[in-house]
């Protein structure tokens, strides 16, 4: 099977600053593929290279079997792009935003109009079709942007943080629509720093850190590889949680002390908790939960804030 996106040793440098430091990526048709990573990890730079608006500094990049350096317009004709910040025309109506954009792809006016109506139905904005974009809520604008990205019936849809800044209702609606697209066989490539989003949507993902790929796999693979099945969160009624670290020694595969709690990484959370209680350690609160992608993410990219 040939990949729709094929990158080898892909590098992007800006005046001495390396945003992407040599990554290998393959995205197959029909897949939902995610780029995860903290701010500055190189996700958006990678997306812009795939979107053919940013020429790679080094390395191989093939999209739909074409070379972005040479065939930019031909590739972009088959991509749908939902950028990190909405760039709709706030003065135009919702429908006009879609129809004028469709024209950039050479889509005939009548077809553009019909497709705009379908897509507005798809993102549940039919009633707002003739409303100006400017006063719409963030969630609605996001849906207009997603609808606009679909106006050319793209083979690949690129979504840069599709639900950042949306309220839970809007996020779930967007997820549900993206999931439907995936069902229809559209290839999705997205960036996110919401782990639940990645777990919901992505078949496969890479965790990026400092311009490199730190890990790759399905959400389940990554959890298995980089975390334990369960996590026990203990909070002790004391200023210094680390005082308990030694006493918890050997209970779990890995013990992580945070300023406000202690995490025990283990395959059997209940057993670990019972043993902690058996050692006469009485945490103020205890929670046994399944390991999530967030644990993997923090393990791989660290807890230090990167701005």
């Amino acid at each position, binding site marked *: 099977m040939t990949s729709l996106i094929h990158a080898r040793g892909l590098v992007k440098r*800006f005046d001495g600053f390396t945003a992407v430091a040599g990554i290998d990526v393959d995205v197959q048709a029909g897949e939902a593929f995610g780029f995860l990573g903290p701010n500055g990890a190189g996700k958006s730079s990678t997306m*812009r290279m795939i*979107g053919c*608006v*940013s*020429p790679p500094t080094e390395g191989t990049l093939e999209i739909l079997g074409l070379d972005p350096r040479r065939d*930019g*317009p*031909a590739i*972009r*004709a088959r*991509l749908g*792009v939902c*950028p990190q*910040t909405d*760039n*709709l*025309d*706030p*003065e*135009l109506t919702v429908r*006009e935003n879609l*129809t*004028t*954009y469709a*024209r*950039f*792809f*050479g889509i005939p006016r009548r077809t553009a109009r019909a497709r705009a109506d379908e897509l507005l139905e798809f993102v549940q904005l039919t009633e707002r079709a003739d409303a100006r974009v400017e006063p719409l809520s963030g969630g609605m604008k996001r849906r207009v942007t997603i609808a606009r990205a679909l106006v050319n019936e793209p083979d690949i849809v690129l979504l840069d943080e599709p639900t950042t800044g949306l309220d839970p209702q809007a996020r779930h609606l967007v997820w549900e629509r993206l999931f439907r697209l995936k069902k229809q066989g559209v290839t999705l490539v997205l960036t996110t720093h919401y782990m639940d989003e990645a777990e919901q949507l992505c078949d496969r993902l890479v965790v990026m850190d400092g311009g490199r790929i730190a890990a790759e796999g399905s959400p389940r693979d990554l959890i298995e590889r980089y975390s334990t099945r369960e996590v026990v969160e203990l909070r002790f009624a004391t200023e210094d949680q680390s005082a308990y670290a030694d006493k918890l020694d050997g209970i779990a595969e890995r013990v992580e002390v945070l300023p406000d709690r202690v995490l025990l990484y283990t395959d059997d959370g209940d057993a670990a908790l019972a043993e902690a209680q058996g050692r006469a350690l009485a945490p103020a609160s205890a929670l046994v939960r399944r390991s999530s992608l967030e644990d993997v993410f923090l393990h791989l990219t660290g807890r230090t804030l990167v701005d």
Partner: protein
Amino acid sequence: MTSSGYVLEYHLVNYRRTWRGSVLSSLVLPLLTVLGFGLGVGAYVNGGVDGVAYLDWIVPGLIASTAVQTALGEATWPVLSYFEWNKMYFAQASAPLRVTDILGGHLAFMAFRVLTAVAAFLLIAAAFGTLHSPWALAVPPLAVLAGLAVAAPVTAYSAFVTTDSYLAILFRFAVLPMSLFSGVFFPVESLPVALQWVAYALPLWHAVDLSRAATLGLDPGSGALFQVLYLLLWCVGGWLLASWRFRARLVV
């Protein structure tokens, strides 16, 4: 249709929202300036300028000035906004358009705006009986040329700056002096020699001079060819600068 045609179409759809107000002001502003300067100031100009009634003399200058002002209006805030505020250029860049389509389509729209504004002014000018030669028909294409001679480099400037205080600076220190000293309101010969050369260097004076020859039916002489070429030079230079800036902003 070419890709820049689709971009022009987008700008026209956008213009459809405001065209009524825009057409109205395209008619009212000329009327006010013709009344105010042509008749008002003209009443104090005895014997006209170079043997031509002041009203007849100033109208072609005002037309050229309108062409340039319209071009400036379109090449400043909208361009800045498409880069900095609503980021429409970036949206266009993710479609299968090339940078030259995005720039070309927008400049074509600016030319359209210049053309409509000048056509409206010509109607007013005709109503006041100030067009004295069939050569007045050469004014619209001339106005488009002058409009682009200003729009292209100013588009490059607007694509270079990132806040609109720089646009205010442009208007204060470049546009205002150019409008005052380019022979629109009084002959450039009344200026000190140094300022005359500033007028000759800028595009507006050439547009004023050529328009004046056209509406008054004067022989512009062989210099007219060089004036047209000079305006073309501004267009080409501006285009090169603007596409360089657009590429630097949109393809990074």
